[in-house]
């Protein structure tokens, strides 16, 4: 912050393009009392959270199935690999034509982003776990479902949580970008664009800075989940009917 303030005050960057941080904070504090500000964040976070949740669910499900069932992997991996090569933002015009402007097409593209990010890592990790423990699972006479629950899912969990962390951030980025491109007049992305067009750059930078903070919180949140997950994973995979009998 001090460097930023110094660079702008020293005239190294034009203040018309980069406002001083104190001016950004002052504008931001003023915005805290505005209901529009909170509405924008509520809309963006709702769109992102639903998109991420659905995207992760689909990506994890497809990934674990692809890891555990070879034929399924052969069927879906090329298709998803094809779509992964397409920048999600390039799909916005298509989504706009099909669904019109608003949160729905943005959520769908953000959701696809989460799915395409988490799927390959999950499929790879699940496939490796299945191969590593296949012999032990067979010797223990596991059903396919038990093998998935006791061996494959926990065996792939660490990589999966790491991929989910990336997917959550990526879907947030796509959500904000989508609000700029096809979101109409509401949401954080739309507000950044609107403030920029009005040359109220302090406001735009305030939204941008808070987006960064939120991205960091999402990342830290998933890091925390990964930490808790690694400690509780044995509880998650234990059989509630059998475990008490063994204690």
């Amino acid at each position, binding site marked *: 912050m001090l460097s930023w303030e110094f660079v702008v005050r020293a005239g190294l960057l034009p203040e018309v393009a980069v406002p001083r941080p104190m001016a950004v904070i002052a504008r931001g504090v003023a915005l805290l009392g505005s209901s529009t500000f909170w509405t924008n964040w509520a809309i963006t976070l709702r769109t992102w959270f639903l998109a991420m949740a659905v995207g992760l669910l689909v990506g994890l499900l497809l990934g674990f199935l692809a890891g555990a069932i070879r034929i399924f992997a052969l069927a879906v991996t090329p298709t998803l690999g094809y779509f992964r090569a397409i920048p999600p933002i390039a799909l916005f015009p298509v989504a706009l034509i099909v669904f019109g402007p608003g949160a729905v097409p943005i959520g769908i593209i953000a959701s696809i982003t989460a799915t395409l990010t988490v799927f390959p890592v999950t499929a790879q990790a699940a496939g490796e776990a299945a191969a590593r423990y296949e*012999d*032990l699972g067979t*010797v*223990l006479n596991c059903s396919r479902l038990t093998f998935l629950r*006791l061996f494959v899912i926990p*065996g792939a969990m660490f990589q999966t949580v790491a991929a989910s962390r990336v997917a959550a951030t990526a879907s947030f980025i796509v959500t904000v970008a989508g609000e700029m491109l096809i979101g109409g007049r509401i949401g954080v992305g739309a507000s950044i664009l609107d403030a920029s067009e009005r040359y109220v750059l302090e406001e735009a930078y305030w939204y941008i800075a808070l987006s960064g903070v939120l991205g960091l919180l999402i990342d830290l949140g998933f890091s925390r989940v990964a930490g808790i997950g690694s400690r509780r994973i044995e509880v998650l995979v234990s*059989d509630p009917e059998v475990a008490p*009998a*063994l204690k």
Partner: protein
Amino acid sequence: MLDQEDNPRASFSEVVLSAERVSLSLRVPSGPFSILKDVSVDVRRGEIVGLLGPNGCGKTTLLRILAGLIEPTAGSVKIPTIPPRVGFVFQHTERNLLPWLTVEGNILLPGRTSVSLTDGVPKRLHRVMDRLGLGGLAARLPHQLSGGQHQLVSMARWLVFPPGVLLVDEGWSMLDLLQRQRVHQSLRDIARQSGAAILVVSHNVHELAHLVARTYFLSSRPATVAAELPFDPKMPSAERSELLWQRAKEIIGNS
């Protein structure tokens, strides 16, 4: 020729594990590649049998066929039908233990996959862990253990849940002398008490001589049973060891 009283097979009546003329060939670009050819082995209830052979001859492959992990291209395998049918201590410890489960969790894994295996488990668990020196390690994760301790945990699983057939693929290669003796005694105990038929792969001829009632020698690839050496139960350990060593040198040296 051993008489009925001296024949080690006589005291182990029921064959619980058998392979009849088992062969395994793989198709490779240069043509069929034969790994095992007409291998016949059997292990009886309560019997401990050794399997010796040169490196890479197919001992592990034979164990995997016996465990039902690989389908042979010819021949048949008979294994018990009542769970836990087959226990397997794999050569590579990372295939035996799940890194996210504690020592106790790993040992109790068969109980999680089969609800019929919970009777008397807590008592056996503590007895086995104490006996193998794992008592203070129950809550540790595999990455906190040494290689030898990994092998002990892998072995402990099948001592707590004695299977009809136990296949041990170099299951104590990283253990010190004292721990090996504990494991050997534990294997003798489950063979005697639960009637487990145990087939052991080891390169340590002297240890096998002390532990097993018979030994199969596999030739190099394509592996066949080059010889079967039964021990007279009355034979002193030193003589067994010398005899096994001589035969191993003859067979492995010639193959």
